[in-house]
C-alpha cells in the first residue's frame, strides 16, 4: 500500500453506543480540527433512542472547504460491538479501522484491504481508573488521544478544549488529560504515527464559527425581538426553543427585578403552540414556534386562519424524514408542499430557505419583519442536517442601527385622523392593509378578527363579490412579497452554459462541490441558490435562460421542482430531478452521477 501522504482531506467516522458519553469526546475531536484552522464538518447520525442503540458521528475534514457529506470513510473508530460488521464494511478500501483491542477481534471481522489499529481502550482505563463509570467515559477520551497521534492533531489544542470544557469542574481535568495521554502514547508506541492520512495546521477559517443551525435560529428570534415562544417538543426542532430560552435567561432578564422579558410556554400539542403564536401576534407581540413536519400538519388549520385573517406568524420548520413518523432522526427536505400550501382552501405561504447557520440567524430575523410587513405566516425551512449539526459559518452579524419593521400598524394618533377605520381596506394598493392592536384607542380601531369571509370593515359577509375582492386582494400581497423576500444567490455572473443547476438549503454544500468537480471534468453548469418562496423574477429568468435546469433536493417526489413548475408555469421537461432521500445528507457524488447520467444520454442522442 502506498505511503503518499494525504493532508487535510479525510472522513472520520465514530461508531458509538447512544448514551455512553461519546458525544462530548467526539465534539473535542471536531473542535480541535476547527481550532487548527482546517475546514471541518461533523454530522450526528443518531437513532430515535436515548440509550443503547448505535449512533455515529461523521467528520469530514477538507482543506478546500468542501463540507457536504462524503461516502468513503477513511478512518473509522468502532467502539460499538453491535455495529462492528456494518462499520468495518463501511471503511473504504485502504482505509483504517481503529478498535478496542482489549478483546481480540473475531476472525470474521478481518478484511484484507483495510488497516486494523487496535488500541486496548478498556484495558487502559481499567488499569488507570477505579470507578466503573469513569472507565466507561474515559474510554472515549483514550481514542481521541490515539487519534491525536495517528492523525497528527496538536495535543495542546485538545488539552485547551478540555480545560475550557471543565473550567467549572477543575478536578475532572487531570483524569481527562491522563486518558488522552494513555491513548496518545499507546498509539505512538505501537503504530507508525502519523498515518499517511493526517491533518496539518492551516489558516483557512478566518473569523468563522462552528455552530448548530438551531442555535443560530434561536438567536435570530431573540435579536428580532420575539417575546412569546410557545412550543411542543419534536425532533429535530426541540433545540431551537431550548436555545432561545437559554439565551433569553442570560440576555432578557431585567437586572433590577429579575423579571423575564420573554415567555416560553411548553404547549400541550402543536395546535396549541400555533394558537398561542397567533394570539400573541394578534395582540402585538412578536411570537414564534418551531416544529417539524408532523407539527406543521397539526398546525395547518391555524396556519390557514392566520393567512386569511392576516395575522403575522413566524414558524420554524426543521424538516426530517417523513411521511408519518418516518425517519424522525434523519434529514430530508420533504415538507416543501405541506409548508408552501399548508391548510385548506386557497393558501400559500412565504418560505425562507437558509443554508448556513449565519443564514438561519439572518433569515429568522428577516422572517419577523416579513411576517409583520406582509401580515401573513412566514415559514423558515431548515432541516435536521442544518439544525442539529455543527456547521462552519460566517459569524452572526447584527447592525445596531437596524429597527424592527412592524409593518402597517395604526397608532392612537393615526386613528384620531381617520373617519372610519377598515381593517381590510387596501389604502396603499399593495394588498397590505392597516391593522390595529387591541387597547390602542378607547373608541376607534376595534375590529372583529375572524376566519370567515368578511368585508373591508371586518364585518361578516357571504357575498360572493366581496369574498372574491378580499381573496384577490390577499393574493396581491404575494406579488408584493416577491420584491421583499431575499433574492436568490447566483454563483457566476456570466451565462456560461446551456445547463443550469438550482438548489436550496443544505444541498448547497454538496451542490457547489459537485459543480466544481464537474467543471474539472469539462462540464460547466450555471448555478442558482434559491432562498425564498414566492420566487421572484430572477428565478424565472434563470430558468428561461437555460435549456435544462437540474433541481437538486432531498425528497422522493421532487417537490421543489413541482413548486417551480406550479408557481412559474415553466415546462416540467425543462427541469430535471436530482434527488437523495435516504435520510443522509446528499453527497457531491450522488449529484454528479445523476447529472452525468442525463448529460450522457443527450450526448449519445444528439452528438
Amino acid at each position, binding site marked *: 500500500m502506498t505511503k503518499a501522504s494525504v493532508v487535510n482531506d479525510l472522513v472520520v467516522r465514530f461508531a458509538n453506543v447512544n448514551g455512553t458519553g461519546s458525544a462530548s469526546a467526539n465534539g473535542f475531536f471536531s473542535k480541535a480540527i*476547527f481550532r487548527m484552522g482546517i475546514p471541518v464538518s461533523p454530522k450526528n447520525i443518531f437513532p430515535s433512542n436515548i440509550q443503547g442503540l448505535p449512533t455515529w458521528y461523521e467528520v469530514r475534514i477538507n482543506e478546500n472547504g468542501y463540507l457536504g457529506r462524503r461516502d468513503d470513510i477513511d478512518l473509522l473508530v468502532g467502539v460499538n460491538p453491535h455495529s462492528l460488521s456494518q462499520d468495518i464494511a463501511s471503511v473504504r478500501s485502504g482505509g483504517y479501522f481503529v478498535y478496542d483491542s482489549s478483546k481480540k477481534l473475531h476472525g470474521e471481522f478481518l478484511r484484507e484491504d483495510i488497516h486494523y489499529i487496535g488500541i486496548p481502550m478498556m484495558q487502559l482505563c481499567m488499569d488507570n481508573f477505579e470507578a466503573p463509570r469513569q472507565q466507561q467515559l474515559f474510554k472515549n477520551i483514550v481514542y481521541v488521544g490515539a487519534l491525536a497521534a495517528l492523525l497528527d492533531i496538536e495535543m495542546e489544542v485538545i488539552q485547551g478544549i478540555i480545560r475550557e470544557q471543565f473550567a467549572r469542574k477543575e478536578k475532572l481535568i487531570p483524569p481527562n488529560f491522563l486518558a488522552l495521554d494513555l491513548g496518545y502514547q499507546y498509539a505512538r508506541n505501537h503504530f507508525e504515527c502519523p498515518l499517511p492520512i493526517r491533518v496539518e495546521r492551516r489558516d483557512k477559517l478566518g473569523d468563522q464559527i462552528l455552530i448548530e443551525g438551531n442555535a443560530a435560529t434561536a438567536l435570530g428570534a431573540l435579536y428580532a425581538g420575539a417575546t412569546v415562544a*410557545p412550543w411542543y417538543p419534536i425532533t429535530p426542532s426541540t433545540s431551537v426553543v431550548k436555545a432561545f430560552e437559554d439565551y433569553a435567561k442570560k440576555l*432578557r432578564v431585567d437586572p433590577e427585578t429579575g423579571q*423575564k422579558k420573554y415567555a416560553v410556554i411548553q404547549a400541550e400539542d402543536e395546535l*396549541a403552540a400555533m394558537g*398561542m403564536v397567533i394570539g400573541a401576534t*394578534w*395582540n402585538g407581540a412578536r*411570537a414564534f414556534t418551531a416544529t417539524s413536519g408532523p407539527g406543521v400538519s397539526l398546525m395547518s388549520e391555524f396556519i390557514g386562519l392566520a393567512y386569511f385573517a392576516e395575522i403575522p406568524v413566524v414558524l420554524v420548520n426543521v424538516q426530517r424524514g417523513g411521511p408519518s413518523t418516518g425517519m424522525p432522526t434523519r434529514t430530508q427536505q420533504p415538507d416543501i408542499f405541506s409548508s408552501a400550501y399548508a391548510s385548506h382552501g386557497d393558501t400559500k405561504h412565504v418560505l425562507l430557505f437558509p443554508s448556513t447557520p449565519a443564514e438561519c440567524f439572518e433569515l429568522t430575523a428577516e422572517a419577523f419583519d416579513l411576517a409583520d410587513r406582509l401580515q401573513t405566516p412566514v415559514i423558515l425551512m431548515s432541516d435536521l442536517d442544518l439544525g442539529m449539526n455543527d456547521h462552519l459559518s460566517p459569524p452572526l452579524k447584527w447592525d445596531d442601527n437596524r429597527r424592527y419593521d412592524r409593518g402597517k400598524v395604526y397608532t392612537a394618533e393615526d386613528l384620531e385622523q381617520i373617519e372610519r377605520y377598515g381593517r381590510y381596506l387596501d389604502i396603499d394598493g399593495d394588498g397590505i392593509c392597516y391593522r390595529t392592536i387591541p387597547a390602542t384607542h378607547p373608541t376607534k380601531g376595534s375590529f372583529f*378578527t375572524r376566519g370567515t369571509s368578511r368585508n373591508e370593515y371586518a364585518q361578516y359577509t357571504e357575498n360572493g363579490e366581496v369574498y372574491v375582492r378580499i381573496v384577490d386582494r390577499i393574493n396581491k400581497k404575494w406579488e408584493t412579497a416577491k420584491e421583499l423576500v431575499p433574492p436568490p444567490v447566483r454563483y457566476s455572473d456570466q451565462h456560461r452554459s446551456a445547463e443550469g443547476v438550482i438548489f436550496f438549503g443544505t444541498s448547497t454544500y454538496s451542490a457547489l462541490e459537485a459543480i466544481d468537480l464537474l467543471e474539472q471534468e469539462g462540464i460547466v453548469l450555471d448555478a442558482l441558490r434559491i432562498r425564498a418562496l414566492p420566487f421572484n423574477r430572477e428565478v424565472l429568468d434563470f430558468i428561461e435562460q437555460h435549456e435544462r435546469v437540474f433541481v437538486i433536493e432531498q425528497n422522493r417526489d421532487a417537490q421543489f421542482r413541482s413548486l417551480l413548475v406550479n408557481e412559474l408555469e415553466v415546462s416540467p421537461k425543462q427541469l430535471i430531478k436530482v434527488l437523495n432521500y435516504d435520510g443522509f445528507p446528499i453527497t457531491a457524488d450522488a449529484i454528479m452521477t445523476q447529472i452525468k447520467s442525463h448529460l450522457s444520454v443527450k450526448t449519445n442522442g444528439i452528438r
Partner: protein
Amino acid sequence: MTYIKPKFRHPGLPKNTLGYSRADYEGAISTLCAGCGHDSISGSIVQACYEMSIEPHRLAKVSGIGCSSKTPTYFLENSHGFNSVHGRMPSVTTGANMANRDLIYLGVSGDGDSASIGMGQFCHVIRRNINMTYIVMNNGCYGLTKGQDSATTDFGSVSKGGSKGLYQSIDLIGLALELGATFVARSFSGDKTQLIPLIKAAMSHPGFALLDVLSPCVTFNNNVGSTKSYDYVRDHIEATSVLDFVPEEEEITVSYPEGGSASVTLHDGSQLLLHKLSPHWDPTDRHSAVNRLQQAKKQGEILTGLLYIDPQSQDLHDIMGTYSKPLNSLQEEDLCPGSATLEKINASFR
C-alpha cells in the same frame, strides 16, 4: 349578515363612572334564534361590564366556533374580538394574554367547542391558570349543525328527534375542580341576578375563572325529556348561594343573617359576599366543593352559583416571573442584545 344598530343614543341615558351608557357596551344585532339562551348571557356580559365601568378597549374577547362563539359579535363592539378556530379559543387567549398581561380576557366557548374538540385545550388552559374569564354557553347540543348530541348531553337525555343520549356526559365544572381551577362557577342563562355578579367576580379574579352557563337551545334541545331544556333546568336548579359582587370603592350595604354568609376579598380589593343556601360547604375549600357537587349529582340537582374560589390565586405571569410591563410594549432597547453581545456569542463558538 351582521346588522348594524343605529348609533343614536338618548342623552338622558344613565352613565357609568367612565361616562359610558349601557348601549356603549352592546354589539351588533344577534343572528341567533329568538329565545336563545346565549343572547341572555350576552346581555348579562353587557350589563356586568357596564356596571363595572370597564374600558371597552381594555378587554379582548376571544371565541372558538359554534353558536356560542358567534356571540362576541353581539356585545362590546368597542373591544377587539377574535373568532378563531373550533376548540382552540384557549390557546389563542393564552397567547394574547402572554403578549399583554394588562387587558381583561373574555373567552367564549360552547359545550361542543370545549368538551369535545377543544377538551385538550380546555384542560391545559386551566392548568396554566391564565388570567381570563372562560364562559361556556352550555346547551348540550351542536346547534349550528342542527342539534347533534354533544359531550355534555346527559346519558338518557332525549333529543328533539326522540333518541336518547348514549354516553356519559362530561361535567366541565367537576373536571375544572379536579384540574386545579382557581375560580369555578355554574349558572343559568335565565338567572341574570345570579349570572351578572358571577361575571363580575370572574373578571376580577386574578387567574382562570370558569363560568359554565346552562343556556337552552330553543330550536334543537328544548323538548320534553331533554335535561338542558328551560323547563328541566328551572325544575332542577339548586343554587349554592346568593352572591353579591362589591367593587373596592363601594360600601358594603347588603347583609345576610349570621352563620350563612361568607365574604371573600379579591386581589383588587373588591369583595364577594356569599349568602350560603346550603350548609357544610366552604367555597374556598376545593375538597368540600367537589363533595357538594357529587352530592348534587346524586340527588339529580343542577348546582349553580360560585362553587369554588382560591383567593390566593397567582396567574401564569406571576408564576413565570414575566416582566411587569406588557411584553407587546417592549421595543428594541429592551429586546435586542446588540452587536457587541453577539460578538461575544460568536467567540463562544470558536
